[in-house]
């Protein structure tokens, strides 16, 4: 026991240090705090309403509980939101992701049922269909200069029709051990799909933040002409952003189809584009482009999914589902609005009138920090 103590202390101190660092960062950028606070608030209120909501048990060698459900159910939205964030960074928007999900699910199901191809080729074909859809959107936006909302609206409407053509309007059920594992099985106590999505998130964040790609994409979103003048190949970047979004949506489509072991061309991914856009905005990104927060986007996804799961477990009468969800989302957005934050800051300052000078200093340094970005 005594032997073990010192290292524990050391890690504790390390943790403490990391926490301090995080708090410092949050003080500098109070904006990043809001999504975390909202998520914690929603979780704690739900825990009060539904006892046992935060409970996690160990069943059949894996974790089991509502919190795991939130991660599990949030994966399709998280993937789509990741692609959406990158597209929104280029001052675009991708409304077609729901339809791409339907297409990729349909391709997965029909190829699994009608061919003897190995499952990896089937998955590659489904992901390929997403890339082709993204290429289509990207060409319309970057080469033909059609406004993103209109360009992707075309595929949003037509895509579901294409998926219905592929499945001939039926729900195509399939059986495949690999796909079933992707949809519902566990690895190291967590659902496999959570690992897949975690991998995608880390990969995206590394590529966007550790290489200059993220900077270029935000630069294109902030000012296309200026970025072109400094030598950034804007068209290619925008094209690849849409292809990335298509790829993410297709992966999400495979997961959704694997989940119910069937492709439901009418309902798979229906309205998911709106949830994804909401998650990106909850994270503090601007729809005018040039500024995205990938990590916070995932927190945004968790807020939305927590709400959905919380409402389902709460025993709320069905008629109130949508109104309650909308009201809470509105509250979260209000918490994040600059006006509310300023008002709160003012109240905070007047309470601490004596420390006013100090506060002012920190405010100015905060402003300075913001201008730097």
């Amino acid at each position, binding site marked *: 026991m005594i032997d073990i103590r010192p290292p524990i202390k050391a890690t504790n101190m390390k943790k403490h240090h990391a926490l301090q660092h995080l708090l410092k960062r949050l003080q500098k950028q109070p904006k990043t705090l809001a999504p975390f606070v909202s998520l914690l608030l929603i979780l704690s209120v739900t825990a009060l309403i*539904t006892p*046992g909501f935060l409970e996690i048990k160990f*069943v*059949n060698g894996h974790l*089991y*509980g*509502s919190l795991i*459900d939130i991660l599990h*159910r949030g994966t399709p939205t998280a993937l789509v939101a990741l692609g959406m964030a990158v597209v929104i960074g280029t001052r675009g928007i991708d409304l077609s992701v729901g339809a791409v999900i339907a297409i990729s699910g349909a391709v997965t199901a029909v190829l699994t049922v009608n061919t003897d191809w190995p499952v990896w080729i089937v998955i590659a074909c489904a992901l390929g269909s997403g890339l082709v859809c993204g290429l289509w959107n990207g060409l319309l936006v970057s080469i033909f200069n059609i406004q993103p909302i209109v360009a992707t609206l075309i595929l949003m409407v037509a895509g*579901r029709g294409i998926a*219905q053509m592929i499945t001939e*309007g*039926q*729900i195509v*059920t399939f059986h495949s051990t690999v796909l079933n594992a992707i949809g*519902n099985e566990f690895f190291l106590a967590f659902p496999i799909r959570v690992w897949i999505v975690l991998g995608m998130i880390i990969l995206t964040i590394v590529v966007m933040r550790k290489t200059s790609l993220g900077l270029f994409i935000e630069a294109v979103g902030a000012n296309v002409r200026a970025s072109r003048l400094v030598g950034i190949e804007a068209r290619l970047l925008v094209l690849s952003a849409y292809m990335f979004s298509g790829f993410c949506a297709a992966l999400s489509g495979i997961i*959704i189809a694997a*989940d*119910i*072991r*069937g492709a*439901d061309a*009418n*309902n*798979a991914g229906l309205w998911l584009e709106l949830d994804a856009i909401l998650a990106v905005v909850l994270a503090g990104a601007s729809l005018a482009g040039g500024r995205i927060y990938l990590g916070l986007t995932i927190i945004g996804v968790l807020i939305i999914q927590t709400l959905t*799961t919380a409402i*389902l*477990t709460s*025993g709320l*009468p*069905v*008629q109130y*589902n949508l109104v309650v969800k909308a009201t809470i989302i509105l509250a979260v957005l209000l918490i994040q609005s600059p006006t509310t934050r300023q008002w709160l800051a003012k109240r905070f300052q007047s309470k601490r009138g004596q420390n006013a000078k100090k506060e002012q200093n920190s405010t100015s340094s905060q402003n300075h920090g913001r201008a730097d970005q």
Partner: protein
Amino acid sequence: MIDRSIRQHLSWFDTLKQHLLTTVLCVALPVCSVSASAENLTIGFSQIGSESGWRTSETESIKAEAERRGYNLKFSDAQQKQENQIKAVRSFIAQGVDGILLAPVVETGWDQVLKEAKRAHIPVVLVDRGVDANPDLYLTKVASDFREEGALAASWLAAKTNGKCNIVELQGTVGSSAAIDRKAGFDAVISNFPNMKIIRSQSGDFTRAGGKEVMESFLKAESNPKKDICALFSHNDDMALGAILAMKEAGIKPSKDILVVSIDGVPDIFKAMMDGESNATIELNPHLGAPAFDAILAYRAGKTVPKWIKANGPLYLPDTAAAEYNKRK
């Protein structure tokens, strides 16, 4: 504005022309009603979509019946949207069809478009669902009695559990008449049994994914789901199939630990019964084409048509599941 008034004028003129023609024919030919029944009718059919296996088989049954009779069927898929259905009905009216089949996605908001059809003297037959509008505005409704289906499910469950059961319910799309009436019929029967009650009820939107997600949350919300939940009542088979997957993943045996009763009778639920994963389904009769077309013929012959032509299906149990599955494959 000018455009619109001309178009209105034209459609009015078209209708008049048609009526004059029919009147002339009827005066000239004493066997008018016979010739009307043998003629090639043009029928518009506004379908909700193809959200479930049942709806697909209904569409196919109606298409097949129209083909058998040599009718020209104009089919429109609304993809779950009322505005698309209203557009479709308006376009049928503009094309001057002989009758319209409408499977309404929700109950309310149909008054205006039904009035337009009535003004154009085109009979509207509601198929498989009702609307909340003046019955004078449509010819008839050809549908199962959703209340009776809900009541039948509840009666079966009461008999199976000796009137003692904690039930979780998967509701259909909020506001749809199938969801409202199946719930009402079910509630009416279990209210006679003091030890039967619905402990949780949520909407799974009639979809497999919805049923699965909601059932997962039900299972998490109970501390000991195997003991606390005695049966699942699902407003359609697809949601029940999703819920069965959720139960299996939580280590619960569907149909043994938790009884499963649902409505519609789609092929996959018979397969689930064969595999011992579901207990009962009540068939929602999809063969509504023949009674609907007959109603339009009766209207054309000047006969009175009842406002509700009931077409209820039976309750199926696992013993006949294999035979029924092969019949439907």
